[in-house]
């Protein structure tokens, strides 16, 4: 179809950047979907402002979407883009510093007006003044070419201009030899009720593709071969969707109805949206009047024998803390999803951070232990959600699922599991009295524990003979009656702690292929990708480096202390000021070294490789 050459590449990082109203997230999503279908492994990083339409053409208004795809296993969204699509001067200015020399820039010249340039502090046009001479610049009149291509359409100029993101997508699709049929099908669904808009978008997409093929500005296109991946059926999935599906699958496998109580908050709201659309799967969602009501509704549903879940981000967790404490005292199953974002206070609503670990661990009054699980990649949110439900139901305890903004919005291919292979999470409710009173009559003792798990019975309303009262006041061991007895409180406090400490979690696995490593890099949550990629880069250079990843933050795996003590140096990178490091030092008396950054973005591979490299040097 084209006479131009096709060059092969093993990996590409593309960043689409424009105004927050330019449709960059959609463009990125579509390119990702087409890329996934091509069989490449990939990882994405959306990055957008908190404002829905920040002032046009300004630096704070820039929204971007980065995609890393390759013919091999991809671990991160990529440190630096090979290609930047800049829809306006602000997009160029905001992203240029991340671009290595030699990278390609595709700039929409129509938006590089004197006024738009001045708005972001450009005295002259960088596309013309030579300041970009170490980059490959393609100056493309994206807007006007889109409008020209749509001349025949009965649409306003503004409506025509709005299709420019499809022109850009078409051009990039040609450049990287991606098919556009899936995007056309997507547009048909999105604009099905507006045939004129639909036809215009499809036309703009084709026009962009054809422009790449015909213009002399682009000498060749590129192909990235499929990555070798385990056999099976794949889909591309974001963390928030994977987490939602994990909860639904867990409810299905436990036989419990899923009841979500939630209040909208960035970046967790997509879980509420996703679950609200899954009523067909027996999912009940209640949008509450506030964060506290959201968790209250979930806890009320759990009391009634449902799988109660609440979803939020850090500020919401602060509001829910008292109810989490109540759930600790009631010993009822409850899943609290915290999609962490930059803090404190409102902080950075759309940016990622891992600074709620200590809040999840300790952010309640009294001794109030709560298990914590953190997913490591977007698709892993599925399995982590199922694991959270396992612990919550088996041990009758609230459980924290600590995702973050990067996992929530980032995406990657996911090998869709077979339903039959998913863990069996069936639960047993109490059905009959479990004790006798002084007179020998059968009674129900709501705090008589299972000797193995220390879980108390889950006795739901509607079960005859099990009528009982529970509450947040300290309860007597076994009977659950109000008790202010000093020894009983000491006992109950230790029992609640012992129950959480005794939760079965798998040992942490250490990846140390040579067995010679003296340095261990320990990650948790979304640092998995960057840590693995950095370690892989160092190994390629011939260094021996060990790597391990924590999924269970409370309780820690049983072998963790031994693992930490078997290395000369343990490095813990975190997107906070050293919260996991603090816990590790306190518990294991090991002098772990923190590497921290709270820039609202995931670590880059380069940065971590340098940090670990420096440690290797010190020890040599």
């Amino acid at each position: 179809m084209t006479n131009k050459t096709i060059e092969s590449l093993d990996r590409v990082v593309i960043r689409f950047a424009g105004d927050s109203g330019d449709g960059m997230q959609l463009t990125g999503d579509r390119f990702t979907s087409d890329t996934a279908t091509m069989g490449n492994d990939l990882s994405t990083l959306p990055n957008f402002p908190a404002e829905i339409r920040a002032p046009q053409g300004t630096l704070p208004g820039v929204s971007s979407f980065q995609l890393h795809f390759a013919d091999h296993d991809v671990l991160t969204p990529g440190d630096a883009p090979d290609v930047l699509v800049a829809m306006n001067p602000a997009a160029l200015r905001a992203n240029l510093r991340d671009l290595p020399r030699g990278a390609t820039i595709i700039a929409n010249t129509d938006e590089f007006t004197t006024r738009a340039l001045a708005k972001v502090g450009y005295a002259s046009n960088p596309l013309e003044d030579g300041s970009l001479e170490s980059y490959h610049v393609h100056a493309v009149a994206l807007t006007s070419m889109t409008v020209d291509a749509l001349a025949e359409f009965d649409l306003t100029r503004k409506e025509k201009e709005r299709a420019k993101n499809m022109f850009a997508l078409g051009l990039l699709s040609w450049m990287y030899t991606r098919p556009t049929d899936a995007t056309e099908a997507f547009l048909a669904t999105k604009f099905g009720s507006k045939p004129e808009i639909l036809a215009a978008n499809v036309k703009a997409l084709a026009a962009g593709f054809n422009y790449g093929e015909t213009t002399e500005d682009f000498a060749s296109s590129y192909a990235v071969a499929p990555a070798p991946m385990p056999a099976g059926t794949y889909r591309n999935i974001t963390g928030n969707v994977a987490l939602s599906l994990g909860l639904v699958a867990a409810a299905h496998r436990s036989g419990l109805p899923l009841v979500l109580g939630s209040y909208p908050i960035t970046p967790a709201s997509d879980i509420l949206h996703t679950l609200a659309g899954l009523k067909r799967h027996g999912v009940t969602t209640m949008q509450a009047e506030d964060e506290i009501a959201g968790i209250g509704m979930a806890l009320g549903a759990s009391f009634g024998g449902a799988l109660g879940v609440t979803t939020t981000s850090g500020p919401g967790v602060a509001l829910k803390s008292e109810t989490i404490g109540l759930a600790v005292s009631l010993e009822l199953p409850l899943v609290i999803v915290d999609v962490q974002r930059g803090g404190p206070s409102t902080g950075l609503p759309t940016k990622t951070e891992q600074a709620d670990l200590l809040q999840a661990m300790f952010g309640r009054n009294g001794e109030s232990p709560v298990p914590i699980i953190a997913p490591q990649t977007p698709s892993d949110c599925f399995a982590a959600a199922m694991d959270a439900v396992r612990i919550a139901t088996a041990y009758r305890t609230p459980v924290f699922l600590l995702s973050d903004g990067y996992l929530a919005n980032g995406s990657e291919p996911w090998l869709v599991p077979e339903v039959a292979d998913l863990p069996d999470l069936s639960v047993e409710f109490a059905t009959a009295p479990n004790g006798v009173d002084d007179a020998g009559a059968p009674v129900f003792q709501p705090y008589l524990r299972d000797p193995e798990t220390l879980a108390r019975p889950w006795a739901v309303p509607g079960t005859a003979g099990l009528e009982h009262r529970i509450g947040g006041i300290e309860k007597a061991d076994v009977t659950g009656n109000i008790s202010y007895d000093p020894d009983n409180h000491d006992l109950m406090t230790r029992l609640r702690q012992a129950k959480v400490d005794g939760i079965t979690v798998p040992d942490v696995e250490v990846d140390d292929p040579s067995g010679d490593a003296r340095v261990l890099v320990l990650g948790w949550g979304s640092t998995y990708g960057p840590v693995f990629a950095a370690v892989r880069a160092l190994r390629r250079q011939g260094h021996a480096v060990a790597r391990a990843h924590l999924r269970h933050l409370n309780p820690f795996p049983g072998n963790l202390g031994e693992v930490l003590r078997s290395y000369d140096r343990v490095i813990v990178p975190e997107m906070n000021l050293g919260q996991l490091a603090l816990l590790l030092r306190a518990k294991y008396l090991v002098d772990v070294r923190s590497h921290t950054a709270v820039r609202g973005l995931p670590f880059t591979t380069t940065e971590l490789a340098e940090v670990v490299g420096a440690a290797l040097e010190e020890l040599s």
Partner: protein
Amino acid sequence: MTITDHLARHGLAGVPLLEADAPKQTKKDFTSDQEVRWCPGCGDYVILAAVQSFLPELGLKRENITFVSGIGCSSRFPYYLNTFGMHSIHGRAPTIATGLATSRPDQSVWVVTGDGDALSIGGNHLIHAMRRNVNLTILLFNNQIYGLTKGQYSPTSKVGQVTKSSPMGAVDQPFNPVSLALGAEASFVGRVMESDRPSMMATLRAAAEHRGTALVEIYQNCPIFNDGAFEKIKDRSEQEARLVRLEAGQPVRVGAEDARRVLVRTPGGALEFVPEDQADPTAYVVHDPYAEDPSQAFALSRLDSPEMTSVPVGIFRQVERPTYDDQVRAQVAGAQDAAGGPATDADLAALLRGKDTWTVA
């Protein structure tokens, strides 16, 4: 309306009844083995006894009744009832009750709360439960004081009330709980006095039968920190002249037979009590708790004043509108029915695959 419709709109629709041949329940069946720990003379004892006597009337199994409470003296209530119960945290009982009522249509769900719990720390949840019209019966014990924390002014304390935390008198304007509930779109609002057992039993009965949120304010005396707050309307010699007993379909009257006054609407639209023998019968205000428009019920609630000159009690409003929990369940059930029943493994597999998959061989 057909009988079926009517039954579906009964507050207890969906809750299983006692078998016809089951032994008759008594107050004792609803009394737990826990020692009641309120102060001697507390109005809560009277309310507890009334509720324990009333519950057998419902004809429900004990396991299908759940009481949820918040924090405060009144919130100890669930411990003393042999039903399912949760003593939760301050102000949040309506949220927990909403979650339970929505996920368990077979439960008769009750909330017990006080003026501080419901109107101060839990004000937000109370108004939202009422606007949603969740099928709950909320008993709001109003003693116009914080009792459990030992005597601070509450959101229903009178302006000028001297308490431990208001030594120079409270400056806060109090809430009128009935006005608040009517403003919050409540579909059932009643008020009773703890000492008036027949009226309490009748109002509890109507509240339990109401489908949707029923708010019953119960004037309750705190003998330790606010003794005598309701003395003017409890005292036999004054009560008749002050207590306005609302009766559906009847003119609103107050006072003994020889001093009977009736409520009229003045030409300016205001409500005013005038001696019955001087009143124009066409101007009588006839109480209509079933009116869609809550304005007259609201106007009645405003007859109240700190001086307790005319205090309306009874059912202010009792209207039918769809309940939150019924509608939430109907959406889930509708989605499941439309898809051919509860999700199977195959349905879950299809959900996990999504719409855009590819296969690696």
